[in-house]
């Protein structure tokens, strides 16, 4: 059982949860993730540790409420406990002074990006950050990312903040301006990472992506998370989550991510109906 020290909505449907987990706070390294089990019958939800405070023994997780499990977890309150947390999982990011590193975060992908960008900055890289979101309300960790970046750009699908367009438009501009880029680090929806990788491949810019495949155990014993990287099957949870973006088969990843779509929708619908029934005056308004 892990105590919820704090939980708050930081953007519509995006929650930040701080857990008491001293050992994980101590052992975690940038790029690694945990699996959270909210209730006894809950599934194992992979989440990146977005931030930590080893002195206080706390870890911060950021998640989007998409399906039943994340929505149910979002309803937890301060002082309650989540059933279990296991980690730290996956390989830590290889941190090194590359020179100029472009850090691209799409949606909640900014959460896993943040600790890596922080480390990249610490070792002396010049950090150019590009954050993308559907609209201005959906940015997370804006302040934190801005603080560590040497240059900071934003894009929105609807033009409500920063450039009206996609993160790839901003990246393209940098490339066209002839900026020296030694590494691109892209974390976000698979489709975003796909197009970033396609663009950087054209220009031969090394690109690292962090994949969010479906997982069950997260310890390498099931293969649910498998992806093709350079034609070879890899397990994201143990071989990753970071891979060379130029080698990842994103189309396969996108299809695999959709494997349980219908069942997830069904579970969510049922959950929302039950929730409505539970509310004291639910259904009597109309």
């Amino acid at each position, binding site marked *: 059982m892990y105590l919820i020290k704090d939980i708050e909505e930081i953007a519509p449907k995006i929650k930040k949860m701080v857990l008491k987990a001293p050992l994980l706070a101590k052992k975690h390294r940038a790029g690694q993730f945990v699996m959270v089990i909210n209730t006894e019958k809950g599934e194992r939800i992979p989440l990146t540790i977005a931030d930590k405070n080893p002195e206080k023994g706390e870890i911060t997780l950021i998640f989007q409420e998409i399906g039943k499990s994340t929505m149910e977890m979002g309803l937890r309150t301060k002082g309650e406990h989540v059933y279990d947390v*296991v980690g730290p999982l996956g390989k830590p990011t290889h941190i090194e002074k590359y020179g100029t590193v472009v850090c691209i975060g799409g949606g909640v992908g900014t959460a896993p990006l943040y600790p890596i960008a922080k480390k990249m900055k610490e070792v002396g890289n010049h950090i150019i950050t590009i954050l993308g979101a559907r609209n201005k309300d959906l940015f997370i960790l804006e302040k934190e990312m801005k603080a560590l970046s040497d240059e900071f750009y934003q894009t929105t699908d609807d033009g409500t903040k920063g450039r009206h367009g996609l993160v790839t438009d901003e990246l393209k501009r940098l490339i066209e301006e002839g900026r020296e880029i030694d590494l691109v680090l892209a974390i976000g929806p698979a489709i975003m990472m796909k197009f970033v990788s396609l663009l950087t491949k054209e220009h031969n810019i090394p690109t690292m992506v962090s994949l969010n495949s479906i997982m069950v155990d997260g*310890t390498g014993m099931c293969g649910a998370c498998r992806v093709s990287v350079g034609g070879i099957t890899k397990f994201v949870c143990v071989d990753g989550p970071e891979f060379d973006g130029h080698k990842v088969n994103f189309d396969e990843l996108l299809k*695999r991510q959709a494997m349980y779509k219908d069942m997830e929708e069904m579970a969510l619908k049922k959950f929302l109906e039950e929730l409505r029934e539970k509310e004291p005056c639910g259904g009597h308004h109309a």
Partner: protein
Amino acid sequence: MPDRKWIPQPKKPRTPIPEQKPEERRKNFKEVALGYTEELAIEEAYRCLQCKNPLCIEGCPVGIDIPGFIRHIGEGRFEEAYYTLKKYNSLPAICGRVCPQEDQCEEKCIMGKRFKPVAIGRLERFAADWFIQSGKKERYEIEPPTGKKVAIIGSGPAGLTCAGELAKKGHKIVIFEALHKPGGVLVYGIPEFRLPKKIVEVEVEKLKEMGVEIKTSAIIGKLYTIDELLKEESFDAVFIGTGAGLPYFMGIKGENLNGVYSANEFLTRVNLMKAYMFPEADTPVKIGERVAVIGGGNTAMDAIRTAIRLGAKEAYIIYRRSEKELPAREEEIHHAKEEGVILKLLTNPVEIIGDKNGWVKALKCIKMKLGEPDDSGRRRPIPIEGSEFEFPVDTVIMAIGQGPNPLIQETQPDIEVKKWGIIKIDEEGRTSKKGVFAGGDIVTGGATVILAMGQGKRAAASIDRYLKTGEWK
């Protein structure tokens, strides 16, 4: 004093075990074999010849006094039967259910030469179940605390056994288990209908009563390395029982299509994560109408029978050799057939074919014939050229074997490994690293529950010796 007179009845036929009917059990996850009643157990016990030189014991990897416990059953002294078993085997309720007795004790049973062997496994299960159901508290003899601390990595049969044996010796034991429930394959792999999870829970509870501490969701190699356990966490010795949980794939085209599972993933979703209760439990599993499982071992049988229970209408086992070579236990094959599983033998998949959305649509296979025996002594399957054929399936489950879990070996290069990352040990269960022992599937590759237990027990004895003498080699 015996409660009953021993009445030898060697000529009686082997006592059948009551079972759920195939058409019923296809629809539920309850145990298939219901177990002997007291009367049936006594009847079966009387078939034992009580040999002076019992061969059955030779067939048992842990050398249980088989005629002894059977005699106790025949005489109605069930509790004594239980404690006789326990002297040799700490998990009799589990072994009575899942051991391949037909290749071990029962194969050697002299009765089998002319009639059918005594149903030793069923009797073992009976004695253990009887004790559990009696609600009696187990007696433990635990030696005074030694002040020594041992870390056990992995809570499968190897780890559980090693922990129990060492706890009896008065050492402080902490088990570290990667998953959120203890039991290893017993909880995530072997299905409820063959081994009720309640039984595993009871065994784990007993260990706790003996003072063993179990830390779940604790992955060694991630949360702590073995070096950290020995140096910072002040453990005096470590036992690695991390099993063979790494699923193998065939490397054929189409294996990453939607609808292709490793048996481990499929069984873990259903057993550990309770996907059969979806959406009450959150983890989903997808099973189509036509399911093909590749492989012929226990894992393959468990997967296909689970698929049937989840609603598969056509269920196939695809195996490249003939029925005679199927590695699964006889009983499992028999049960699978009764439940409607179709064996496609001498058949090997060459490609999984997908539809435009990336879902499995068909399996392309090639027919095989058997050639000369290979190194394993089994006849080698040879593809028959031009015999490829396709048949429609919605779900494909790969059950072609598992490799050793690699997490420890990666972070502890000073522990010597053999081919495929199997940890090397000597005849005492010692690894190449001082104070570190290993046993179970991690040193043998996928084997059996009883062999894993046997190794856990042997390692416990050498760990105890090491802790008391400090001598390594």
